[in-house]
């Protein structure tokens, strides 16, 4: 029992140290949680949810910042042939004021936020796994300073399958009549 606890503590320490090191050396203040593979029917739209995390003590502008000159957070994706990237839905930002301008409110993301991406494979696409690549453009600040705009690499996989709804809709294709 004790050994197990010590091992768990050691693992916690090592992983935290690794995370902290990565954060300190990484140019990014935003990370992408590893996305799960989304299964989508060929010819039908599916939604992929991408979970991002803003490092503690930082904030980034939302997709619709209030101030004219601020850089908005924006996802750019390149889809493989025969897969169309549809609407990208960003969450509402949070109106917050910061010590550097206590009377102003900025519309920002901090902590975790999710971006939904509609992916529509054409009906001609070969059923298999496809990788979608792109980047999240963002600009982070803390309470006293701002970091230049950055591009966080983003990639996720979608598994395209034959249209399952079509099979369900036309079950009586067989000439045999079951009584």
């Amino acid at each position: 029992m004790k050994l197990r606890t010590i091992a768990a503590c050691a693992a916690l320490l090592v992983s935290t140290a690794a995370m902290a090191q990565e954060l300190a050396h990484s140019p990014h203040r935003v990370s992408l949680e590893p996305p799960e593979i989304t299964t989508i029917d060929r010819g039908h739209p599916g939604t992929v949810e991408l979970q991002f995390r803003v490092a503690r003590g930082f904030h980034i502008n939302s997709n619709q910042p209030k101030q004219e000159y601020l850089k908005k957070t924006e996802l750019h994706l390149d889809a493989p042939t025969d897969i169309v990237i549809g609407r990208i839905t960003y969450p509402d930002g949070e109106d917050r004021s910061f010590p550097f301008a206590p009377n102003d409110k900025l519309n920002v993301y901090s902590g975790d936020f999710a971006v939904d991406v509609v992916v529509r494979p054409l009906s001609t696409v070969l059923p298999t796994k496809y990788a979608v690549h792109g980047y999240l453009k963002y600009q982070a600040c803390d309470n006293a300073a701002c970091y230049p705009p950055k591009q966080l690499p983003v990639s996720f996989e979608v598994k395209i399958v034959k249209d399952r709804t079509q099979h369900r809709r036309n079950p009586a294709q067989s000439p045999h009549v079951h009584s």
Partner: protein
Amino acid sequence: MSTPEIHSESHGPQEPKAEPNRPNIPGPIAVERRPEPSKHSGRRDPVILIVVAMVISIMLVFGIQRAHKARITTTAGKLQGHLAPDFTLNTPDGRTMKLSDFRGKAVLLNFWATWCEPCKVEMPWFVDLQNKYGPQGLQILGVAMDDASPGEIQSFARKLGVNYPVLLGKEDVGTEYGGLEYLPSTFYIDRSGKIVDHIFGLVSRSEIETDIQKALGQQVASK
């Protein structure tokens, strides 16, 4: 018929059970109050260990982040006491300016960007301070480290009433000044062209004023 067994289930502290090899002596002599078996302490140990591990983890995260910031500051700190790297940059209206053109003046060199909200806070202070200390030999220079167009930068500066030259920054100039990983970054240069101080991030107006006085070679009251 068997006699029903009496179960004496007690939820309170239990009497220590007689060990099989030890003679079970009745009476008060047998009541040996020994500390409870380490049922609770055995449970507490892992909790303490986990709490300690979590505290160390948090300290690690903060420590490494601080060290990272300190590293950036140290890189620029190496410039302190040395001649400010010279540069030639354009103004949004196409004129060219060299830092060394201002030798003999105290220079407040402020790197900023239109997307930097904290930078916007100190720009009106710089306007006031240019008016106040300009006659004593201060020249404020704003270098926009921005991907906005020269027109946008000019219009942004005009909106804030900027009364000092604004220059269009270049990456290599930023590198010369320690990388400028974050903005605002301000360097205070004395009349001989040496960097006397640098500040990363937004600080109070009074701190800026103290550094200006230092750059001007004025007696600075101890903080």
